[in-house]
């Protein structure tokens, strides 16, 4: 049976960098795929018409290429079902989930389990990232070919770096046979030691053991070197320090196949937030200094940074409600990223909407070599509808995620999500977006 469901999105502003579209346009979906894009498209009988609210922006679906869904093993923190519900509520049509589950996603069985759960839920697309080494132990390559065949789109030992440079080299070479990038968590653990916060004035005064920026930069520099050596693509996760950006910039200038991502929290928060020992500011890499944040913003503007990814890291309340040095690293981000980026990047003029779509849709799709990132005719209709003028107050108690560990709770932000469409199906619609008062800055 042919699916011929027809949906028309009308009245929106369409942004599709891959087709150089940036203006008012309607979009017709037929059978789950984009069928037409253009101004004042004719509406055939039997078409469901969705009117995009005033100021609404229709974009290719946002892809968060770095999340932790915690299943299997830590279902008290998050599950595939709650994670993807959070994703679509945050405007993401797809997520790539890291392999540090229990058991580790280092064999096809785990990959298939995650994909099966995701298929059952049927909200967002879930792309598992396989482990680079068996058990993420950094000693022996995982069965990367089999992981690829089972549906993994990249490999990574995230949570840890691939510490051994020779093994990193081999992982890059081996993964390139399957056209998969290696995603590295840049941290020299021998230098980072048992640090818990960015090594600098604030950690010093608070008596918190330091995580020096150099621990990140050493591995970032090494990875750029190894990518250059092997010619294989490397993707550096959640960069936070200005030295790492220098390494990436230098690599890109030399033609090295390096890409990188940054999180919304590293683009908005600095280490002075640590003063009250709130563990919702504890993550790895840590919040760094104003000079780092400025460099990250520059790099987002000039294209050195390819993607914005949340590193969504759910933790249970009890685990985060602990002494700062014993609480786990990580914050959640799926349900705040779009609002934070619209409010802190687009509205102040750091990036255009077009650039935001590249950072959150087009570039992640091309780095992971997955569908999406475009609204060309014929592609699956994965669409994020933004409400850039919507007034949003972050309320962690209303999150779809099981976790509440956000540093943005209570923030009042300008910009949100109107709807999330995956394969032509509306999987999330924000009641608040329809007919909502436009944002007035009362802060």
């Amino acid at each position: 049976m042919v699916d011929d469901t027809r949906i028309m999105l009308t009245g929106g502003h369409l942004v599709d960098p891959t087709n150089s579209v940036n203006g008012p346009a309607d979009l017709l979906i037929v059978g789950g795929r984009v069928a037409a894009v253009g101004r004042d498209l004719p509406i055939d009988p039997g078409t469901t018409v969705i009117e995009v609210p005033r100021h609404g922006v229709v974009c290719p679906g946002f892809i968060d290429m770095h999340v932790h869904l915690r299943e299997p093993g830590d279902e008290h923190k998050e599950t595939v079902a709650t994670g993807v519900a959070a994703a679509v509520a945050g405007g993401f049509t797809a997520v790539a989930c890291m392999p540090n589950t229990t058991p580790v996603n280092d064999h096809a069985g785990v990959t298939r389990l995650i994909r099966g759960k995701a298929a059952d839920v049927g909200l967002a697309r879930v792309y598992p990232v396989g482990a680079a080494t068996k058990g993420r132990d950094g000693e022996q390559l995982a069965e990367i070919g089999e992981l690829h065949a089972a549906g993994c789109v990249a490999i990574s030992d995230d949570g840890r770096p691939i510490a051994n440079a020779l093994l990193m080299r081999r992982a890059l070479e081996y993964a390139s046979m399957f056209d998969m990038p290696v995603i590295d968590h840049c941290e020299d653990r021998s230098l980072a030691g048992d640090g818990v916060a960015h090594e600098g004035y604030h950690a010093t005064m608070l008596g918190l053991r330091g995580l020096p920026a150099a621990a990140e930069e050493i591995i970032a520099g090494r990875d750029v070197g190894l990518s250059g050596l092997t010619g294989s693509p490397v993707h550096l996760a959640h960069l936070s320090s200005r030295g790492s950006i220098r390494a990436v910039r230098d690599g890109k200038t030399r033609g090295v196949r390096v890409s990188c991502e940054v999180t919304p929290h590293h683009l908005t928060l600095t280490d002075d937030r640590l003063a009250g020992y709130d563990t919702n500011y504890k993550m790895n890499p840590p919040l760094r200094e104003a000079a780092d944040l400025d460099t990250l913003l520059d790099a987002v503007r000039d294209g050195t940074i390819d993607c914005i990814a949340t590193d969504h890291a759910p933790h249970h309340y009890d685990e985060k409600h602990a002494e700062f040095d014993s609480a786990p690293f990580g914050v959640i981000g799926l349900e705040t990223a779009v609002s934070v980026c619209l409010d802190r990047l687009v509205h102040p003029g750091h990036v255009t909407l077009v650039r935001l779509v590249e950072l959150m849709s087009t570039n992640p799709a091309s780095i992971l070599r997955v569908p999406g990132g475009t609204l060309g005719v014929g592609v699956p209709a994965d669409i994020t509808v933004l409400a850039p003028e919507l007034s949003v107050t972050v309320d962690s108690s209303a999150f779809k995620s099981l976790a509440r560990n956000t540093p943005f709770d209570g923030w009042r932000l300008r910009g949100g999500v109107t709807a999330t469409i995956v394969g032509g199906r509306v999987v999330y619609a924000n009641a608040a977006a329809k007919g909502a008062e436009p944002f007035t800055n009362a802060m």
Partner: protein
Amino acid sequence: MPPIADVLTPDGLAAPVGLRTKDLLSIGDLLPEEIYLILDTAEAMKEVGTRSIKKVPALRGRTVVNLFFEASTRTRTSFEVAQKRLSADTINIAASGSSVVKGETLADTVRNLEAMAPDIIVVRHQSAGAGHLVARLCRARVINAGDGMHEHPTQALLDALTIRERKGTIKGLKVSIIGDLLHSRVLRSNVQLLQVLGADVSVCGPATMMLPDMARLGVRATTSIDEAVEGADVVMLLRIQLERMSGYFFPSLREYFQLFGMTPERLRRAKPDAIIMHPGPMNRGVEIASDVADGPYSVILEQVANGVAVRMAVLYLLADELQS
């Protein structure tokens, strides 16, 4: 007869000065006038310790819990003596790692304590910020008695009281703090307090034990002990935590003493009336030679006596009725 101005405030009884904060977690939370209030109150408290009956009823019927996750006979005893002199009911809880093994979190422990409705909780913990967590979880007032590498505010206050007694003032004094700077909560509290009180602070230790971003602290740092001691009014030595020494910070205790140990010869560079302080417990022959520790410059025992007075002052000033 002392000048009458000393014994009277212009507006008479009960000048309305108190602590704004619910808790004493960090020196940085105190305004300069609050620091002076604590020191002045501590001076008055010292007199109680000279009486034949060293006990006043000020905190009668109040419950104070000493919650110590880290063994510290010295600090706990000092707090306990202070509490007894103020007639408070004292409960000592020595929480070990074993409750963590059993799965009880710090939050659980504090919630259980809160059910006993203590008025004040004195916390010593190996993690920086543990006092902040306890304070967020309970209505009781919290006194930080040392949290990891963060702070030890009552130690800094007793040091300031000792210096002020000996020197009359702290303003303009040259104070050199020497030893394991990196891991020292005493240093962090003292640097802030002494700077507020107008001292000229310099620090000295091995390059491996310097604090990152020292310049922003507004102190001079040197690795030369002779330079640090030169012209000092106060030499404060910090304890080397032997259990922390894995050979990463300096090669041996012997070499540490050679480079950074305080000896009578080195002390000659200080002012003739310089005083030597140490928060204790001392490692004789490591950071301090015995003839310095026991010598005429040493005010280490006065520090102990002042510790009780400062803790009485802090307990008394924090003991306002909790607002419900």
